């Protein structure tokens, strides 16, 4: 393995890319969830989908799927770690900057295109709340 000082990404990004957390392999039905949210578009090169399981207003489990580059995979993985165990209100507060800080800063040109997961998470939370109201 290339132990990567020469990677364009930080060690933390590389770690989340090579060893992503909480990803959902294969059939989506394998993960029992209460709501999902999706953001991005394959045409733009990045798309993320978040799956959340909620108990007592808390995200007790989370999973994701991503089509995208290394920083898209790493940032979605990082987001899943940040969001797990948080209340829905706390999770709604997670910003792109928080993900970027957690990863030790992505290359600048990657920031806007690849940190999208928090929007998918917001959508999932909103979908969850909308479903509960109706």
């Amino acid at each position, binding site marked *: *393995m*290339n132990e*990567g000082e020469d*990677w364009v990404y930080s060690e933390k990004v590389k770690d989340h*890319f*090579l060893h*992503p957390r909480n*990803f*959902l*392999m*294969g*059939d989506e039905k394998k993960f029992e969830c209460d709501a999902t949210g*999706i953001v*991005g578009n*394959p*045409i*733009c*090169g*990045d*798309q*993320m*989908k978040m799956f959340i399981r909620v108990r007592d207003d808390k995200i007790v489990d989370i999973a*994701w*799927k*991503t*089509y*995208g*580059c*290394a*920083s*898209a*995979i790493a940032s979605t993985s990082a987001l899943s770690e940040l969001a797990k165990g948080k209340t829905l209100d706390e999770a709604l507060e997670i910003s792109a900057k928080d993900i970027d800080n957690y990863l030790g800063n992505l*290359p600048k*040109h*990657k920031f806007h*295109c*690849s940190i999208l997961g928090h929007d998918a998470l917001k959508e999932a939370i909103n979908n969850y709340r909308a479903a509960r109201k109706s």
Partner: protein
Amino acid sequence: MTYLDYAATYPMPEEVREAMSEAEEKFFANASALHTPGHLALNEIEECREILADLVGANPDEIIFTSGASESNNTVIRTFEGHKIETSPLEHHSILETAKMYRGEKMPKLYSYMLANNETGEFLELPKVDHENSFLHSDLTQALGKIKIDVKELGLDYATFSAHKIGGPIGVGALYIRNGAPFRPLIVGGNQEKKRRGGTYNTVGIIGFKAALLKMRNDESFLRYDHDVRKLRDELARRILAEIPGSSLNTEIAPGKSLPNILNASFEAAEGESIQLYLDAEGVAVSTGSACAAGDIKPSHVLMAKTNDAEVAHSSIRFSFGLENTMEDVQRVMEILPGIVKRLQDISTIKMKGTK
């Protein structure tokens, strides 16, 4: 490491490194100087000019040295500043952006069509020109060394060459200018290159270029590309299609359709930069047409022009071979690539066609 990115840069062979380090000692003088050390340096430069001219069917006085293919391309386009300029959509950015900036309405018109594309390896059909109302430039950066080239047979007025794509140093290129074709220097202010390109001669770089050209000639490189390298490329293509679900080729590999050393393939639902970096983590170097890799927001203009499908472009990988590659390199790629693609497809938001 398994290096399959020769179309980006050809790692310098030992002969070239040795020639350059010897040149640092022996040919240190300014090649424009009248003293003996200056002459010795100039002789080396002229030898390189003759070798390149001989290899591509030009006269030595039709070749000038530049800082690389981008300068050569810029020089030709700027010669036609304010004139009609038509390019293929597959050209390098040093053609496309320069043409966009400087084209006008005047005649004669310049056509700029590369002979073989750098991303797919595919050949382009060159337009016919009359050398009076229309002139033809071709970027031969990828073609040099891989196939036999004759600038006269191709009907060219201008041709671009680069040293580092054949094992020479980065920062050295050449431009063929047919005797009698219009020309305006890009870098002015010096008698070098018969006033066609100012600036002190890059003696050591040009000597490196010469060593790479000699190696190319002595190795009969285009025969080896045609016989040996083509086998590797075609075997990789065959195995990718056979062993990786959702794979497709962006290079037509039939003889006569593409350079024998480049294979571009796309992998449905798996993004190119991620494939590239997972391969890199396993010691395999390739490149991708995905937007992300180049720090761009759009994917490869070449694959977009060819396929008009952004997902195909984002999911593309270019494998480019050199004379040093062996079947073991193909084997190594196929040991890891199917697993990498499968994993990316498994976590992808895009569902593979034909699956639930």
